[in-house]
């Protein structure tokens, strides 16, 4: 069954104005009145001398509609209050993990693989020079199936202090 979540503070305000009516009948009454409000003319009634009963009724519906829009904004803001801090925490955590991977975990492995690949090629050339067939020496490497890290260069990460010093140095040279 559909449930409509409403901020308790909003609902309590209505209940305080209508004590003695249970939630269910009060909710039904509010929805019926809401239907009437939404069926009314949505434009703001103009001021025109002493208002008639009908003009007051129209203005009342207009106020209820505008207040309802505002209440929806407030509901969204309050009910999803944790979304932004949660997103900020998740972004920070993902940044730290990404940095850890790209700075501390992946580069040493790639550099090690790159060095070993170069060493294999050097040794294979040396073996050929000695009259050996490197292809006959096991284990062989199926090069197309491996990660080509031969052109890999370790990324350089600078602290904010380092970046500031570089910028100051750059402008000093310009003078």
């Amino acid at each position, binding site marked *: 069954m559909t449930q409509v*979540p409403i901020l308790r503070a909003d609902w309590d305000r*209505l209940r305080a104005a209508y004590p003695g009516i249970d939630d269910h009948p009060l909710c039904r009454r509010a929805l019926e009145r809401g239907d009437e409000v939404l069926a009314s003319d949505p434009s703001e009634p103009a001021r025109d001398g002493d208002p008639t009963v009908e003009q007051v009724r129209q203005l009342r519906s207009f106020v209820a509609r505008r207040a309802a829009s505002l209440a929806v904004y407030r509901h969204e803001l309050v009910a999803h209050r944790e979304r*932004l801090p949660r997103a900020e925490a998740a972004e920070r955590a993902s940044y730290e993990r990404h940095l850890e991977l790209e700075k501390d975990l992946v580069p040493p492995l790639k550099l090690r693989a790159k060095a070993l690949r170069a060493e294999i090629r050097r040794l294979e050339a040396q073996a050929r020079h000695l009259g050996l067939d490197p292809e006959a020496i096991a284990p062989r490497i199926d090069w197309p199936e491996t990660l080509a890290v031969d052109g890999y260069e370790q990324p350089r990460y600078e602290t904010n202090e380092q970046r500031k010093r570089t910028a100051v140095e750059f402008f000093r040279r310009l003078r």
Partner: protein
Amino acid sequence: VIPGAPLLDAVAALGDATIPDDTVGLAPPVGATSDVDALRFRLFAGMFDLLAGKTLEEIPDNVAREAVLRAALTTIGSTEPALRYALHDRSSRAEQLELVVRMRGRQIAMSDRWLIPRLEEEIPLYEDRVSALNRAIEGARR
């Protein structure tokens, strides 16, 4: 205009986004739409209409009633821009961060589940190959 009037108090309180976020779940009548957002808007419209009804029943003439309703409108008009901006600002910042987290999450998963295991698998193969080549070269030299 009327201190303590339910409508004016309720409208003045709409600008306060620091209220507790606990909710009550209201069950609409059987047969009502299942669109929760539409129901919530209807419910709010009815709630404020009922609060207005409670406020206006204490007021004897239409001029004073109109004045109360206009006062409520003034409060709504002054509160709305700030609330809309706050909602837009927080939602768009959250959306942007969530997008960054999703994109970065893919890169992290790629490194964690594919790149690092792959390198860790290949490095011992390379080391074995280096050892084997060294042994063969040593043998050829002797």
